[in-house]
């Protein structure tokens, strides 16, 4: 016959083990969610396989209201579309790092770049890019112009650029800059030159 006090202790120990198990499972799930969210939020950088090359970025500076060109080096893939995406990710990397000349939401990224006859580029941005974008005429214009001019600087045959958001058309970036338009790279460069 087990004494009553030992019985109570055993029951309490069993309950303690049960509660601890549930708590551990809960913690484990939480950690997995955090890791998954962090992985999703990370801006995808260019792949490390390939040749290191010089890339020209057209960077927007909100405080001064100007664009400045900067040469950076990065590892670029050989495939044109992947290369275009990597170039844009280098630009976005400048904006999502802190301090930033033109802050973008941390998870902002280009999902895909489609090149049509090397003359038309269709940029598919992720939803976080648009949902986290600041609203305002100048800040939205600066994002659009710097993406287009950076791409055109590194792909000289490019004539037009069109934006999609998660595969769909959207009217504006965050209420102001026109995203329905097919942008002429030459016309955009002319505007960028005025603001350099």
């Amino acid at each position: 016959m087990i004494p009553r006090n030992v019985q109570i202790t055993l029951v309490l120990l069993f309950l303690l083990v049960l509660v601890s198990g549930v708590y551990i499972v809960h913690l484990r799930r939480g950690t997995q969610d955090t890791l998954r969210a962090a992985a999703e939020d990370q801006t995808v950088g260019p792949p490390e396989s390939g040749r290191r090359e010089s890339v020209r970025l057209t960077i927007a500076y909100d405080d001064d209201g100007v664009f400045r060109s900067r040469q950076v080096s990065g590892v670029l893939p050989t495939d044109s579309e992947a290369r275009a995406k990597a170039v844009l990710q280098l630009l976005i990397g400048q904006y999502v790092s802190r301090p930033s000349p033109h802050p973008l939401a941390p998870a902002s990224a280009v999902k895909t770049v489609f090149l049509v006859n090397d003359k038309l580029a269709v940029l598919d941005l992720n939803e976080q890019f648009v949902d986290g974008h600041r609203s305002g005429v100048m800040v939205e214009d600066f994002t659009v112009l710097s993406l287009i001019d950076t791409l055109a600087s590194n792909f000289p045959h490019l004539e037009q650029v069109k934006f999609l958001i998660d595969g769909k058309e959207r009217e504006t970036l965050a209420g102001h800059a026109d995203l329905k338009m097919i942008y002429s790279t030459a016309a955009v460069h002319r505007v960028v030159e005025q603001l350099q």
Partner: protein
Amino acid sequence: MPFDTVPKAPAHTPQQTIHRPSPPEFSVVIDPAHGGTDPGARIAPNRLEKDLTLLLAKKLRQELQTRHIAVILLRDNDSDPSFDQRTAAVNLARPSVFVTLHATPGSTIHIYTAASNRLSDSDRERSGFLPWDNAQATFQNESQILAITAAAAIEKRELAALVRPSFVEPLHSIAAPAIAVEAPADKKGLKISPDLIAGALADAIAIRKISAGARP
């Protein structure tokens, strides 16, 4: 869509035998940007761009009416017409000037004209059909002059104003001299008195009216 003051058609008398073309009545369409479910910029938790644009639009309407200029307001409540609805209303009204109003955190008034998206826009004629997405092309010089005049009127009140090209909606589709004005704001509201901004813009539009030779 609430139209505040619709320009009246010229009166005809049956006795008239000679028809002289009367000068076009000068009218202005004001677009308080955003509205309804589109708040625009969240300047502070309780300070939305859509409310500030409406406030400024009503002030501008008042200033223009005191100068005897006909005004159409694209919204005078918390409605949210789409860009296409706004553009259609403007182009059907055939105004002498179009002004779209915005507000954003900052300290300077910005005046935007539509940045050209083509290299040879000046070749187009106004008499034929204008492409919907590029109707502004033939009005670009006049829009630029209006923007510079507005900046000068603002600077006359010892305030700073910058004129810039932009791809802001719906300027490119507007078949009239058109500008977008972005007023600086903070959590308290517009940083510059709406009376001052509206007064300066109304002065610039009145100058445009004189230079267009419209009837008083």
